[in-house]
C-alpha cells in the first residue's frame, strides 16, 4: 500500500490493449493502402516533460517531510568500497550522545551494511534494490515510514555504491556527500562529472593509505576543486579517525543552520 505515490495503482497496460484494438479496426476500414495511410496519418504529439518528474515530485515531498521534522538528511554516494559505511559507523558512535540519528542503506543484495550500522545502536533501514543501481525518492519515502515517528536530527542515506546512476535521483536530501578514497586514483572526478558537479561535501577517505598508494594530493585536490566547484572538501580516515572531527563539526554546523532556519519561519 502506498498512499503518497499510488504505487499500487494498476496503470498503463490496460489502455495499451485498447489502443491496439482500435488500431485494428482502423486498418481494416481502410483496406490495402496500409503504408501510405500511415504516412499521411503520422502526427506529432508535443509533451515537453521531464522523465524525472515523478522522482522529483516525491523528492520534494521527502524534503517537506524532513523540514517539518527538523531532520537534516544526507545522501551519501561513492564508488563501491570507498568507505561510506565505515565513515557512518564512526559518525554514529561519535555523535550518539548529541543527536537522534538513523540510517537508510541501499544495497544490491545484502543486509551487511545495515547490520554494521545497527550495531552502533542507531536504527537502520535496509533497502535491497536488486538489480537497481541507485536509490530513488520513492524508496526513501517508504523507508521513512518504516522509521516511524520518533524525533530525528540526522538521517544518513547510504546510497548504492555507484558513481553514475545515483547522480540523477534527488532523494529530497539537504546535503549530498560524495565519498572518494585515495586508493581510487586522482582523476575519479573527471570520469564521473555528473555526480561531483553538484556535491555539497566531498570526503576524501583512507588518507592513512595515501603514502602507500603514492597519492598525488596536490593534483587530486586541484581536480576535485574543478569538478566539484561548490563542495567543501575534507580529507579523513575512517580507519585512524584522522580528520573526522572536522566532519563532525561540519555536521553540527549544518544541523544548527537547518534548525535555526526552521525556527525563524
Amino acid at each position, binding site marked *: 500500500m502506498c498512499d503518497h505515490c499510488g504505487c499500487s495503482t494498476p*496503470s*498503463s497496460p490496460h*489502455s*495499451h490493449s*485498447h*489502443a*491496439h484494438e*482500435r*488500431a*485494428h479496426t*482502423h*486498418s481494416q476500414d481502410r483496406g490495402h493502402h496500409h503504408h501510405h495511410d*500511415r*504516412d499521411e*496519418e*503520422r*502526427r*506529432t*504529439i*508535443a*509533451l*515537453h*516533460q*521531464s*522523465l*524525472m518528474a*515523478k522522482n522529483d515530485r516525491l523528492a520534494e515531498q521527502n524534503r517537506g517531510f524532513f523540514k517539518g521534522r527538523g531532520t537534516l538528511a544526507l545522501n551519501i554516494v561513492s564508488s563501491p568500497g570507498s568507505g561510506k559505511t565505515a565513515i557512518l559507523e564512526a559518525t554514529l558512535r561519535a555523535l550518539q550522545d548529541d543527536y537522534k540519528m538513523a540510517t537508510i542503506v541501499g544495497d544490491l543484495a545484502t543486509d551487511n551494511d545495515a547490520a554494521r550500522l545497527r550495531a552502533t545502536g542507531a536504527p537502520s533501514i535496509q533497502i535491497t534494490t536488486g*538489480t*537497481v*543501481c*541507485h536509490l*530513488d525518492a520513492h524508496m526513501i519515502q517508504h523507508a521513512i515510514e518504516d522509521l516511524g515517528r520518533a524525533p530525528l536530527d540526522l538521517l544518513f542515506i547510504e546510497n548504492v555504491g555507484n558513481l*553514475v*546512476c545515483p*547522480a*540523477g*535521483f534527488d532523494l529530497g536530501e539537504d546535503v549530498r556527500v560524495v565519498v572518494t578514497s585515495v586508493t581510487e586514483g586522482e582523476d575519479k*572526478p*573527471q570520469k564521473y*562529472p*555528473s*555526480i561531483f*558537479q*553538484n556535491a555539497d561535501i566531498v570526503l576524501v577517505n583512507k588518507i592513512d593509505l595515501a603514502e602507500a598508494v603514492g597519492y598525488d594530493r596536490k593534483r587530486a585536490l586541484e*581536480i576535485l*576543486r*574543478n*569538478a566539484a*566547484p*561548490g563542495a567543501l572538501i575534507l580529507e579523513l580516515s575512517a580507519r585512524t579517525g584522522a580528520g573526522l572531527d572536522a566532519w563532525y563539526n561540519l555536521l553540527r554546523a549544518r544541523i544548527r543552520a537547518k534548525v535555526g532556519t526552521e525556527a525563524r519561519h
Partner: protein
Amino acid sequence: MHEFGIAESLLNTALETAARAEASKIEQVNLRIGLLAGVVEEALTFAFEALSEDTPAQGARLVIEPIPVTCYCETCAAFFEPPRGSYRCPTCQAPSRSVKSGRELQLISIEVS
C-alpha cells in the same frame, strides 16, 4: 543500469499518450538529454527496444538531441560551455557552481500514426 527505469517511464508515458490520442503505432520518440544527465544513449535505446516489444511502440525510433553543459559566471555575467571535468569560467577562471543546462532528461514529443 538506471537506463532501464528511465526507459520504462518513457515507454509508459509514450504508450499512455498514444492511447489517449487513439493512435495505433508510435513511430518515433524525440528526447533531449543533457550531457550531465548520466544517461548512456546505447543503454537507453537497448532498454527501450527490449521493453517496447509487443507494444504499439515496438520498432519506434528514439531520436536523442544532446544538450551541452552550460554554466553561468556571476563575475562576468556570462554563460559558458565548460570543458569536461571542470567548471571554471574561461574568462576569469572562477569556478561556477551554477549549471544552467546539461542535466535535462526530457521527453519532447512522440510521433504516432
